[in-house]
């Protein structure tokens, strides 16, 4: 569904994504891991067309993506939830969701079923939500586009542990029950590996390790080497 072939991309002349290749199939969920500053968010920005691609090819459902403008990528089935959430503050929860709704299995009803808190808050304005609710709304808004692939950039960052658990359950339901394809960038390595099927480890802008999440969880030395964290044995 999504293919990167030797992609070099970055901001202006600076190269951040350096000779990166990867493929993703339909229905797959991928955890994108790596230390700070290895280009995880930049990879998502490259998929969405917000960086300059110097070389290489990016293909999406058989179509060359490099020249496609960002808004058309969103319409073509790429749903992006950026780290900053960026809820529209003066629109209500419901309006935030409705802005770009496209027909498909995700509609107001199924989003509310996934995030019941949003239904309780549907008449509230975007700036009257807690951090966790904003994150749910940001994910819900991206899902309303009915994306073939959802890109989540550190959805659990800065949230209270209770909310993290709640969000993880929702993300798991998205993957297991709805078969939603997604790329999950996360610093919470354990949670990310518990949610996704496959893990890609990024180092200096390229994929250096590609494994099933369950294998990676069992192979702690690799995690320590590339991600630099100790993981409690499951």
């Amino acid at each position: 569904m999504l293919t990167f072939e030797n992609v070099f991309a970055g901001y202006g002349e600076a190269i951040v994504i350096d000779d990166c290749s990867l493929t993703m199939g339909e229905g797959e969920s991928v955890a994108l891991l790596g230390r700070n500053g290895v280009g995880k968010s930049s990879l998502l920005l490259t998929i969405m067309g917000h960086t300059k691609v110097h070389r290489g090819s990016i293909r999406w459902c058989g179509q060359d993506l490099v020249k496609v403008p960002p808004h058309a990528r969103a319409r073509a089935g790429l749903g992006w939830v950026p780290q900053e959430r960026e809820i529209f503050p003066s629109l209500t929860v419901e309006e935030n969701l409705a802005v770009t709704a496209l027909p498909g299995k995700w509609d107001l009803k199924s989003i509310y079923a996934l995030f019941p808190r949003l239904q309780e808050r549907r008449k509230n304005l975007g700036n009257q939500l807690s951090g966790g609710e904003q994150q749910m709304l940001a994910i819900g808004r991206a899902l309303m586009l009915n994306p073939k692939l959802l890109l989540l950039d550190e959805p659990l960052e800065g949230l209270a542990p209770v909310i993290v658990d709640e969000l993880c359950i929702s993300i798991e339901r998205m993957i297991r029950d709805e078969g939603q394809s997604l790329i999950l960038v996360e610093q919470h390595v354990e949670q990310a590996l518990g949610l996704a099927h496959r893990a890609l480890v990024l180092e200096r802008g390229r994929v250096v390790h590609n494994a099933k999440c369950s294998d990676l969880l069992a192979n702690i030395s690799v995690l320590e080497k590339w991600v630099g964290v100790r993981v409690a044995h499951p």
Partner: protein
Amino acid sequence: MSDNLAKASRHVSFLRGRERWKSAEIAFWLTLVGVYFVFPSSLVFASQILITGLFALSLDMILGYAGIVTLGHAAFFGIGAYTAGLMAAHGWHDPFLGLLVAGVTAGIAGYLCSFLLSKGGDLTRLMITLGIGLLLYEVVNSATKYTGGVDGLQGVEIGKLFGVFGFDLYGKTAYIYVLIISFLLFVFTRSMMNSPYGLALRSIRENQTRALAIGIPISACLTNIYSIAAVIAGIAGALLTQTTQFVGIDVLSFQRSADLLLILIIGGTATMYGGFVGAVVFLLAQNWLSNLNPQYWQFFLGILLIVMTLYLRGGILGGFSRLVNLFRHWRNKEHS
């Protein structure tokens, strides 16, 4: 694009609920009908208020909803006014044809100008729109042979509506004509702003990069709305020409653009009705204050503006809806 939007609006059914008319809205339009019977001697003035309200509605579309600041919106009003005037002065007396051509001409001008505005921040837009307004004013001013320059365009003769209803001295026909046209354009604008397209515009106002990321084609949206707003401004200008049978160069003046901004902000932005309410308050206040003191009346207007900006955020309608909420809150408390 519109196909997508139609699909989307079927998809999010709660938007349909908004299309229902609230009782306050129905009361508003019925009051305007009532004005015809209650104030038969002030219909000329009432028409001017309505025209200004319609003009302010067109500003609300681009400023209130899409967040484009402008100090040159009178350009499109003026283009409409002069188009209708020149047509009527050169033998095309039918008022509806005049409205149509004026709207289309202003729309084309808006479409062309929109490309200058699609990039750049608020300050850039302010300067560009100001520039366009000044430029057009001087073009009309210098083309005295065709436009009459500062003396205004003479010899505007408007035919009867449907060949039956002539424009009378008391402005009876004019008021009904203006009211019906304003209402039709309002209904059109209202349904547009309550659709997902209206939401898309508001999300562009809130956060351009985010809007882009969720698939909103920003430049296309801004070009559309700027052109449509120009059409409505042009029609408002044409209505002024047709109901006064004269075009003064002040239709293009900077003062008109600036007053319009005041009117909309006084009334309340992004509310659909803010422009009309602002026009009523502003023109009545202007009338009343200039009777009190013809020379220095703007002094009081200045005070009004400062007080309103500081203490009445969201304009009159914003303050009103806060009052209503307070009252509801208080009543709920009483009940429980």
